[in-house]
């Protein structure tokens, strides 16, 4: 019964987990989850701040210019409690980002970022 209770509590807890896009404020006002963006580049800087971390990612363009996107991730306190640490990603690390474009036209900000390495390992 104890095992069943533990499994039940786990399932109950999982059902209670909310998607990260609702983590703090109405992120939907800034980013459009219906308008995804995928970036391949290298980490420029990790900013470990509330309410959402930012990873600045250098993304080379076809014309040779490098654009630096600011990609917002999860809440640093919640991430810390899940075992994530700021130095999981370092400047110069190759990274693939999937996220939501900013509603503001021309913005280089990206929301709800998911970060994986080129070999498919999920970082955050």
């Amino acid at each position, binding site marked *: 019964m104890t095992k069943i209770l533990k499994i039940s509590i786990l399932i109950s807890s999982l059902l*209670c*987990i909310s998607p990260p896009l609702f983590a703090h404020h*109405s992120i939907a006002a800034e980013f459009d989850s219906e308008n995804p963006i995928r970036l391949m580049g290298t980490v420029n800087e990790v900013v470990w701040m509330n309410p959402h971390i930012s990873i600045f990612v250098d993304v080379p363009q076809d014309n040779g210019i490098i654009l630096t996107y*600011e990609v917002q991730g999860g809440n640093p306190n919640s991430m810390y409690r899940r075992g994530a640490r700021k130095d999981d990603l370092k400047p110069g690390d190759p990274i693939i980002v999937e996220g939501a474009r900013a509603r503001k036209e021309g913005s280089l*900000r990206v929301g709800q970022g998911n970060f994986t390495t080129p070999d498919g390992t999920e970082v955050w």
Partner: protein
Amino acid sequence: MKSQVKSLVTNVMVIILILSFGLPFAAAQNTEEIPRLSNGKPSMTGYWDSVRRVDVTNTRLSGYVEELPYTEWGLAQWESYDRTDPEQGDYAGSCMPFGISRTVFGPWPIALKHDNDHLVMLAEQNSWFHMIPTDGRAHVADFPSSWWGDSVGHWEDDTLVVVTKNLNGYTKVDTAGHPMSSLATIIQTFTRVDAQNIAHTFTLDDPGAYTEPWTVYNNWAHQPEGFRIMEYSCMENNLTGLTSGSLLPWIRPDETQPSE
């Protein structure tokens, strides 16, 4: 075979009960003694975590509200609110106070410090605090209205009842944006069902936005020894969004609040 089936049915029933009523059912197994204040009442002191509730009508989370009985003003507020519209400038993005509802329904832990005279809520979310006198004093009649309002607590048997009045009407009930007016009274109850759990209720009595009071039921789970509340500086990384224009600042709404 028959006993295996019976065991399976029993286990499934347990799972259904827990999924339906949340952790309090599982917590009924806990036999630790409930800590008490020097006046004999249950102490709520501890670090607590609860269910994140983005939308109080979300049927996936036990304790939800089945149907919100809007007034005409409340329905107009709800139908005109679009949290994807940056022009509406969500106050949370500007790090304005979330108030009681969006703090207790938020995803971050809360520390409670409790003695005979006060319950103090220390919320990790935006590092806010809220003090609730429990020494028998009344609400301050001429207090200016505010985001968190004016709270006082009293005991009904071993349940601590916290009543909050004098709200400014700027906060929403939840992230989904359900309305709350300046006429709202929030009634919370804290019942320490055992050493590891508080049965918490949130009742909104708001004749401005709803025709009758409604209640959300939440379990608060005690966090283990060594748990820490972390700093949460809300504006730290929202500032660039606000200054770049990507995130629009909150502007005090000019719509009229409902009258009594």
